[in-house]
């Protein structure tokens, strides 16, 4: 069932991308959940899907496309005022997805790539470009380091914005840097499980970790660990699925998301 698993270049690439995405998304996800920004994170992912479609259309590196549109989405989100509720994020998300529909339509009809929609929206870890693993690992490291730099003011402003302002924290700057980090995390997750499923890696392990511990640092480490477990477990199960239904590999993204969901369900049982 697992013959050739460890020697396959494709598998190693998938493990690298999945692991990098899980580590950064787990850490960023803890702050996203604490700040109650799950919907914003999801909106960012949906907007970045237009970037994925654009990169298919232009034939550039998908990470560049995801990140570019993710940044644009972050800019749109940071412009909204407090009290708008989720509506502004929702409208932005709809506009982004509309653009994705158009770009995918062009990608499918002009470049004749029928699988474009599936690749961008649901990901295809096993068909990632060979160099993507190293690039993903590098950006994840950079993201984690940047998060380490801003983690104290970020935590303070997430838990009590008033207190943070009194202590002299530049709340707008911190929120802006955080949105950039969120865009990076979403980009990596979109490379791993596809744009609309990237929320799974961002929110799932983090929400599970926050059920298990109240200490933010520990929660980040735990979320990263759980995320890596889900990502690598998903890759292994997808590899093994070749034997379930002869000749057809089940989607990697399905296994990763299913594992994330089970992890979260198991964690929520603990303190019912």
């Amino acid at each position, binding site marked *: 069932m697992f013959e050739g698993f460890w020697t396959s270049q494709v598998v190693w690439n998938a493990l690298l991308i999945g692991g990098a995405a899980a580590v950064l998304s787990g850490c960023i996800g803890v702050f996203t*959940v604490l700040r*109650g920004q*799950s*919907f914003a*994170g*999801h909106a960012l992912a*949906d907007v970045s899907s237009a970037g994925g479609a654009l990169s298919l259309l232009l034939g550039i590196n998908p990470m560049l496309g995801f990140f570019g549109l993710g940044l644009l989405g972050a800019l749109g989100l940071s412009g909204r005022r407090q009290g708008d*509720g*989720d*509506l502004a*994020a*929702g*409208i*932005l*998300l*709809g*506009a*982004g*997805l*509309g*653009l*994705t*529909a*158009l770009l*995918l*339509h062009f990608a*499918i009809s002009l470049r004749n790539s*029928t*699988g*474009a*929609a*599936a690749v961008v*929206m*649901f990901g295809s870890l096993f068909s990632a470009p060979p160099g993507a693993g190293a690039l993903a690992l590098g950006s994840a490291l950079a993201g984690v380091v940047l998060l380490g730099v801003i983690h104290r003011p970020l935590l303070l402003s997430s838990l009590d914005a008033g207190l943070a302002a009194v202590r002299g924290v530049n709340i707008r700057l911190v929120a802006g840097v955080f949105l950039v980090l969120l865009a990076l995390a979403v980009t990596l997750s979109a490379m791993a499980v596809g744009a*609309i*499923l990237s*929320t*799974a890696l961002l*929110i*799932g392990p*983090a*929400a599970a970790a*926050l059920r298990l511990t109240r200490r933010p640092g520990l929660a980040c480490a735990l979320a990263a660990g759980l995320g890596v477990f889900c990502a690598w477990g998903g890759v292994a199960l997808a590899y093994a699925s070749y034997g379930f*239904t002869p000749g*057809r590999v*089940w*989607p990697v*993204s*399905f296994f*990763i*998301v*299913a594992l*994330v*969901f089970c992890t*979260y369900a198991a964690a*929520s049982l603990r303190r019912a």
Partner: protein
Amino acid sequence: MFVPYLLDGWIVATLVALASGFAGFFVVLRRESFAAHALPMAAFPGAAAAVLFGVAQIYGLVAAALLGVGLLLWLKRGQRNDAATALALVALLALGALFLSLSGRYADAVYALLFGQVFAVGPGDIAPAVALGVLVPLAVLAGFRPLLLSALAPELASVRGANCGWVDALFLLLLALAAALALPVTGALLVFSLMTGPAGAACVLLRSPKAALALSVGLALALIWSALALSYATGWPAGFFTGALAAVLYLAARMWRRARRARPSPGWA
């Protein structure tokens, strides 16, 4: 543009806009954008399963949307509501991806189900669309007062004897039915735009709930008709125009109100 084989698409799209306009008004009022985004995703694996097992799509859609309501209600009992919604949403999407992948029609079906294919609607889709397109508005009108009260003043509603749990469930049910109806037309991802864009604009513009509801429905109809006409004229996907026009509508309403600052804000929009 109104040739016979496209007529079915126009009829179904009109019914979809009716149901979405009614349901969307309460989505905006109750600040349930995320639930409105998640429920069409719940219908997605149903449509995918229908492709896999070869049954009529509408049954798969409605069954899966009902399951989605149950899942959402169950998850909402815990803390961190929005994280739970996000997870339910992606889990259902992933399940749909699995069904489509197993059916062997992954590539073409993914695009159709996520972004819609209104002009692929056939005569067989009319009957269920009429049923849902009439049922959802009627149910919203019948439950208008408890829905409104529990949206604006939940404490008052429970004092007055309305059971908020049941009203919540009823609301999600209506949302799910509207989503199931809309999915083949606008796709799982853009049902949401059709619900929130017109309703959001209406709530920004008008203070009276009844007038805002009427405007929301009117704008939803205008939105879907323009999207279809533009799609027909350009050959571009209708989903693009739906998402873009919804955003334009909402932004225009916001700018209109800003330009007329003198008028006090309705407070609930």
